[in-house]
């Protein structure tokens, strides 16, 4: 339902342009949860913004549900990493969640009562109905991010984009939120694109893991996650399949292994580091 073809984008003044992503091609099916993971500066956020229609890519195109994306399309919702700045401090939690329903492209603005009902329902999905009248800054970080997720769900999107959503919360909260996303996806059968720098997380939540190389971002690997559902923080992470997959992703992210290499059984330490891949073009300086 989402087709990304040859997506390319660069930043900077003319003459000093820095290539952020380079000919990214990716297809996402309905109901899939695709994790996008990579080292810093690999253009993950740029990719997401191009998909969301917030950026006009320099090259390539994005097609959502058969419709090419040139501005922010309908049926899409975004969750940012920085919830404290993304939630509006002058609105209550409920009004924050109801905000997207007040207009926006194509969405019919409902009556006030209708909006509030939808907001409460979305808050129920994330388990926060009793915070409706509070202000976001009165809540903990994890709860604020739940509110942001509720806000994204309130407009019933078909595609949910998440930009390092759990990067600013503590580890325990992160686990709870990961499970929340899985639950939401099961309930609503929604398609999710989740950008993260946390390798464990990318494997744990995803149906597929897409690994981007260091800038300029290109797809290094697109690995299916062959783990049973429903996932569990303890048992799933114990599985040998999880450990191996996680290690493979880890190596790919560090640029230590080309995809398709055998996963070595017992490696001698010091054997790992491979010289830079000469076939790849010169890297742009890190941000």
């Amino acid at each position, binding site marked *: 339902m989402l087709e990304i073809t040859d997506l390319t984008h660069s930043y900077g003044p003319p003459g000093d342009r820095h290539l952020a992503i380079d000919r990214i091609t990716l297809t996402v099916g309905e109901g899939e949860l695709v994790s996008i993971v990579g080292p810093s500066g690999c253009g993950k956020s740029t990719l997401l913004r191009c998909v*969301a229609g*917030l950026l006009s890519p320099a090259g390539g195109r994005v097609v959502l549900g058969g419709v090419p994306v040139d501005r*922010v*399309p*309908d049926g*899409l*919702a*975004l969750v*940012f990493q*920085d919830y404290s*700045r*993304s939630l*509006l*401090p*002058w609105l209550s939690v409920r009004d924050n969640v109801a*905000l*997207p329903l*007040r*207009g*926006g*492209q*194509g*969405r019919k603005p409902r009556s006030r009562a209708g909006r509030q009902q939808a907001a409460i329902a979305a808050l129920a999905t994330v388990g926060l109905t009793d915070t409706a009248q509070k*202000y976001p*800054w*009165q809540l903990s970080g994890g709860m604020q991010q739940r509110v942001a997720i509720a806000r994204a769900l309130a*407009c019933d999107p078909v595609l949910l984009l998440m930009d390092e959503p759990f990067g600013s919360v503590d580890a325990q909260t992160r686990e709870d939120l990961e499970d929340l996303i899985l639950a939401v996806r099961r309930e609503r059968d929604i398609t999710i694109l989740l950008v993260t720098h946390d390798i464990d997380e990318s494997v744990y939540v995803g149906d597929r893991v897409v690994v981007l190389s260091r800038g300029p971002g290109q797809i290094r690997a697109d690995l299916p996650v062959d783990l049973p559902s429903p996932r569990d923080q303890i048992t799933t992470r114990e599985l040998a399949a999880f450990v191996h997959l996680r290690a493979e992703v880890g190596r790919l992210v560090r640029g230590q292994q080309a995809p398709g290499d055998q996963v070595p059984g017992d490696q001698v330490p010091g054997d790992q580091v491979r010289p830079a891949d000469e076939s790849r073009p010169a890297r742009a300086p890190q941000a």
Partner: protein
Amino acid sequence: MSQGGRPGHVAQWARGLAGLAGFLVLAEVLGRTGIISRAVLPLTSTVLARAVGLAADPRFLADVGATLEAWALGLAIAVAVAVPCGLVLGSLPGVRTATRTVVEFLRPIPSVALILLVGLVLGPGLRMNVTLIVYAALWPVLFNTIYGLDDTDPVAKETLRAFGFGRPAVIRFVSLPSAAPFIATGIRLASSIAIILNISTGFITGRISGNGIGAFIADANTGAGNTALVLAAAIWAGVLGLVLNMVLVWAQRRLLPWHQAYAAEAQ
């Protein structure tokens, strides 16, 4: 060096009052002993007595009322003009650059300098008074509006864009509320400027221009015991300014309840 434990609220109030009282006593002593000649400055007690008397003086109260009227009118018009202008200038960088030189040039012109000109063009009266107040009060509100818009969090703006909202909606839901505390500060600044201008204009043009504290001081300036009366009126003018400021702060707290607490939480 470290400040040590801060005294409690009541203790702070007591200190402040003690300082004030001490000053008054000192001034009185200096006057009575003749160190400060009574020909130069009247006794503190005389001034205070006059001040108390003014509170019951219907002429003075009428003048205070007239000043308040002009203040309210001028401030309201200034805000009604400055906030939309600020919105435009703050959201459209092209317009802002183009108007920059005009604005920067006009800004330091003290409105008192315009009193004579406006007086000639409009003739003395409420219209002249209000026009000058509007001109003077415009700038702080305008600049604070622009400054507040500049301060808007780009993440918040991008969030709304991500939900498909257009520019007008972003201004309405994000930029304006975000700028509101700044605008409120600008209004408070404009308020004190408005009072000063009203009094200056009234003083220079005199009672021919209508009532007002300025006219009162001009009248008080002639005649015996004038300095005490002028000082008494000045004290009330100061009190008026403080009271108006407190009212505006209270209004800000009511209208923008989230700001105080949010700013505190963010620490």
